[in-house]
């Protein structure tokens, strides 16, 4: 018998039976999350299955965020927010407010998830938690409602596709470029029902904020989860962020002889900055192929690339400069703490001086709800994760996806620009510690 993957080991442990890929199990959930769109429907399920004396499986591990329509952009959204607040107050769940930020940023920053946790979120980007070695997966509202009631949920144990990158990443190439490349290579559905595991020396050298990007976008190739093996860097990051000591179980990793469905191997030195063309993330090409494409709007934010390090990269480029006259820029920090860091370090001022608009923390225009929705014919270059037709507004708008460095460079020239034309830095996780000090 060959070894096991992380996903097989984790779901075996949480289900209390020894299982392999393909098996169906009912497993114990560690953390459950819902937000202002998916929460209300999950609550209905919760009440329906539990009846009168409804109690949460674990109030202290239930997290509700108000992030998608925050602050409320209409009466229905406001009512949904109130439903979340009422539910949290009644059942003792953790609830984050308008301006606290995007679920996937908040759960990591506030220490709700850790390596080896099984996390279910009523949001497809719940794969993000794999960036710190958790098994995070997106589920629907019925799933979440029943998990809130029972603390258990059914899962198919996924196969795993391994993406291995070795060597030193060239200048201008970030985790975002890697994951766009992977998605382009396997396709939008290439990892359906499977875990995307990212490994190799280039991945190991990535700071946590970049590992989270890889795991986050596993869903853009259909993945059930994304995973980077946690290490000392993970423990240090989490301890610094959350003030809590973190235990990493050394046996809870993919065995060297684990069976993978596919293995894709890359040499870091061969990789170039990527841009995904409209209207599917799988349309990834080297930036040089789309250089010169004119842009109307730049969008910096989302659960993919709205962290302090991402926004700082853009601000570095715009320091003392102005946006190209043909573009506008919308910046939406992923969390309230990112927003405060931006104020503290002058990133906020740099960006507003350059002509950018900065919104309160949350999802912003990522899903086309508010705070910078695109009109007919608009072309947007975004640090986001999806570029489906109509995703950020009009069905006739066009969204290109790229790294913060590419977005920063493009802001200067008003057209898609190769970030290697300017000097871009790579931040490690200590930059946040410096801000906080």
């Amino acid at each position, binding site marked *: 018998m060959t070894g096991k993957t992380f996903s097989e080991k984790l779901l075996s442990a949480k289900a209390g039976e020894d299982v392999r890929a393909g098996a*169906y199990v009912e497993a114990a959930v560690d953390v459950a999350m819902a937000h202002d*769109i*998916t929460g*209300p*429907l999950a609550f*209905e*399920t919760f009440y*329906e*299955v*539990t009846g009168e004396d409804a109690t949460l499986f674990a109030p202290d591990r239930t997290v509700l965020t108000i992030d998608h*329509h925050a602050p409320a952009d*209409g009466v*229905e*959204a406001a009512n*949904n927010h109130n439903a979340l607040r009422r539910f949290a107050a009644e059942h003792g769940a953790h609830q984050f407010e308008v301006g606290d930020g995007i679920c996937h940023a908040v759960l990591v920053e506030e220490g709700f998830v850790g390596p080896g946790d099984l996390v279910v979120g*009523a*949001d*497809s980007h*719940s794969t993000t938690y794999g960036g710190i070695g958790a098994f995070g997966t*997106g*589920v*629907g*509202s*019925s*799933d979440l*409602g*029943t998990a809130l*009631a*029972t603390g258990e949920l*059914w899962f*198919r144990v996924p196969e795993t596709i391994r993406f291995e990158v070795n060597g030193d990443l060239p200048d201008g190439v970030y985790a975002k470029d890697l994951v766009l490349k992977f998605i382009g290579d396997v396709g*939008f*559905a290439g990892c*359906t*029902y499977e875990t995307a595991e990212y490994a190799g020396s280039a991945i190991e050298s990535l700071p946590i904020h970049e590992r989270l990007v890889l795991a986050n976008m596993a869903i853009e190739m*259909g993945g*059930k989860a994304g995973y980077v093996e946690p290490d000392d860097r993970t423990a240090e990051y989490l301890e610094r962020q959350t003030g809590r000591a973190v235990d990493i179980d050394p046996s809870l990793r993919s065995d060297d002889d684990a069976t993978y469905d596919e293995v894709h191997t890359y040499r870091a030195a061969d990789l170039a900055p990527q841009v995904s063309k409209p209207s*599917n993330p799988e349309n990834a090409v080297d930036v040089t192929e789309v250089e010169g494409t004119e842009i109307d709007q730049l969008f910096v934010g989302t659960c993919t690339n709205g962290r302090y390090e991402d926004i700082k990269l853009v601000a570095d480029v715009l320091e003392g400069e102005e946006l190209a006259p043909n573009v506008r820029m919308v910046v939406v920090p992923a969390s309230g703490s990112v927003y405060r860091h931006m104020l503290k370090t002058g990133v906020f001022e740099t960006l507003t001086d350059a002509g950018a608009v900065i919104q309160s923390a949350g999802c912003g225009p990522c*899903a*086309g*709800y508010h705070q910078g929705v695109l009109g007919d014919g608009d072309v947007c270059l975004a640090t986001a994760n*999806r570029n*489906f*037709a*109509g*995703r950020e507004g009009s*069905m006739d708008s066009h969204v290109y996806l790229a790294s913060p460095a590419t977005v920063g460079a493009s802001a200067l020239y008003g057209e898609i620009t190769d970030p290697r034309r300017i000097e871009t830095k790579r931040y490690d996780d200590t930059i946040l510690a410096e801000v906080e000090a």
Partner: protein
Amino acid sequence: MTDPSEPGRAWVFGDDIDTDQITPSRFIVSSDPDELATHAFEDLRPEFSENVDSGDFVVAGENFGSGSSREHSPLSLVGAGVAGVVAQSFARIFFRNAINLGLPVLICPEAGIIDDGDEICMNLGEGVVYNHTTGETYNAEALPEFLQTLVEQGGLKAYTKAKLAGRESD
């Protein structure tokens, strides 16, 4: 729920129909199946919500329901009275949500042969799709046993209620 073994009209869609196309973001502030049904496929195929009849089927190509985790998408089809969805493949969360809601889904590699407007029906137990218009029969993947149990019990909620009731009586 409508009976998938009764013939109904096939509404045929292509590959990679994502949740934004099934239920555009701007309408999902509602969680009401009937309300959601009135906007199903609104940007892609505006006549769908007006003309769909209870007992009709949705037929699609590869990767149906990709994109967000919104349960609003299968729920809008439940609201529209759709009896089942046949696709060459499904995005994972959509498939899961549909099972959980008791909306029958079958993975059928030959779904591409079905024409818009054909009369079709499904046999879930056997994993078969019948085309009454052409007289053809297509093989589909039978649902794994665990999922069959879920669907037979009427979806995840009914299954969980029974489970919780079992715990109390333990």
